[in-house]
């Protein structure tokens, strides 16, 4: 399945926290402009794997990796890799909506300002664009100067997506983005992800198997740090090859 369309290629990749091996020898291709879901029970290493793709795991001082993660053919753990540049190109949206305690506008403009864009007109355009893409513009166009924290949970999460989109990333990593949201907000986010995949590659970690089945093209099932099965979502859910996968998706454990 490793082919030209792969934006990420994960090769024999392991992650340690101290002496604990959280992710064991994983191989995984991620196809560009598709949604790939990673499912598995709590503690199986799926979030750890996700966070290693834009090197957010570097923030945990005890973590270390073995193996290779190729992003567009370049090893992101090579010593010459510019981590800042990597994180601009591979954005992230977290489990709990985490807007900064500043205005909606400032939240979205944060990344572009870091890049050194200062011109008001240019920033305005980027902010509007990102909010439109995150399907939030209509709701917040009149309150761009109000606090990002005054929005509803679902709106906050879309604000976080807009904040990431303002960087024009090629990939966005979603770490259980709807686990803190109500069903309607969840549906909104899922629709949004399906629109976004035309322009952005999406990797989503989720506890919700129906969510994976609904929105993703490919699904990876992880268990105890191992990649048990990876394939097209339809295959994984309808006709899994591995017994563990079958037991998990039918709810016999996890």
């Amino acid at each position, binding site marked *: 399945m490793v082919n030209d369309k792969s934006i990420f290629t994960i090769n024999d990749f392991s992650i340690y926290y101290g002496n604990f091996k959280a992710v064991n020898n994983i191989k995984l291709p991620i196809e560009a402009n598709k949604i790939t879901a990673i499912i598995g029970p709590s503690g199986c290493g799926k979030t750890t794997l996700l966070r290693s793709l834009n090197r957010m795991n570097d923030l945990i001082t005890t973590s270390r990796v073995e193996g290779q993660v190729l992003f567009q053919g370049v090893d992101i753990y090579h010593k010459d890799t510019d981590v*800042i540049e990597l994180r601009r190109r591979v954005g*992230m949206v977290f489990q709990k909506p985490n807007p*900064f305690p500043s205005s909606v506008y400032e939240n979205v403009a944060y990344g572009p300002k870091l890049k050194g864009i200062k011109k008001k007109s240019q920033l305005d355009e980027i902010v509007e664009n990102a909010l439109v893409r995150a399907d939030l513009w209509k709701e917040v166009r009149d309150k761009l100067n109000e606090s990002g924290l005054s929005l509803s949970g679902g709106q906050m999460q879309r604000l976080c997506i807009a904040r990431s989109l303002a960087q024009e990333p090629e990939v966005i990593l979603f770490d259980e983005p709807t686990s803190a949201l109500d069903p309607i907000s969840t549906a909104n986010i899922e629709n949004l992800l399906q629109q976004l995949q035309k322009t952005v590659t999406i990797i989503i970690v989720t506890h919700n198997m129906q969510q994976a089945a609904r929105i993703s093209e490919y699904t990876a099932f992880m268990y105890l740090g191992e990649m048990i099965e990876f394939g097209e979502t339809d295959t994984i859910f309808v006709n899994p090859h591995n017994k563990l996968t079958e037991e998990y998706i039918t709810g016999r454990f996890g």
Partner: protein
Amino acid sequence: MNQVLSFWLVQNLSGNNTLTLLLKRTEEGFPTSGNDRERVFTLKWQTKEKAVEFVVSSIGLVSVIVLLLIGFFLFKEAFQIFYKAGALQVIFGSAWYPTYDPPSFGMWPLIMGTLAVTLITAIMAIPLGLGTAVYIAEVANHRVKEFLKPLIEMLASFPSVVLAFFGMVVIAPILSNWLSPILSEKLPELLKSTNIPFISTTLADFCYDKLFIASGLNISTAALMLMVRAIPVISSIAEDALTAVPRTYREASYSLGADKWETIWKVVIPASVSGLSVAVILGIGTIIGETMIVLMVAGGAAVVPHWIFDAARPMPAAIAAEMAEAPYQSLHYHALFGVGAILFLITFVLSLISDFISKKYRAVRIGEKV
């Protein structure tokens, strides 16, 4: 203290059989009609609740009343001097000669003494205190942090009289015997020998005139000692404020391609600005109220200081030095209470400001304001 006591009271007054019985009965449905036994239990329970409430609120009231009484006494005693000698003449009068005949009670030199010492200390202590806090909270690794944090908090409990004594017998002689000759003799000579216009003339003269330290007991030495007092206050409060910034803000910032300094500067510091302001204000409050250091090290001259090596007599120093010799109910006695009242008002305004800032940023934190 109040909390501990009320906790004890709640434990002992309501944690008994009556409550347990009552709770058992409520499970079966609360009694609505005439069972006397149950009514007695209910009544007893409510009475105890009221008793706890009464005791706890009385304890709270006592501290408020004591504070009000002290405030009342302070202003009552201070009123006399402002009434008899005229408030403006007292506050802006430039001569503090309390034991002359006739005496003069111009507090301006004392007020300016306090302001000068506070200003010089603040210029040194605020950046150092906040810098220390940022280092401990954001930069230092775990082991350094575990070592530095208690050390700095220990510095706060250092007796100020020892600090003042150290300033008096160690720092002051170093300034006047060692630093002064270098700055006001050797340095001008060196500058003159360069023969560069301005540097060999104006700058050399400036060093010769201004960097001569007549006495080591001056506002700069006092400020240096006060800085040691203020830094632990500022840095420990500021460090708590920085640590309280949620990890999720930092993660968001890093994931958007910010580096460590950008994250500290653009996310962590703005998010903790209320705590940092409170740290600074409480630090300044500590400096203003600090007595022993300014009494022993600031030089004691009741004149408005014009330069950083001048001596001064800040307000707390004047009160501490003179209260013992001022006859009871004399004008001097009232004048010292007047100084105390002004001091109190300054620190009161500072704590009001810190309260205002906390409230304002609480609204930002929960998203009511930007």
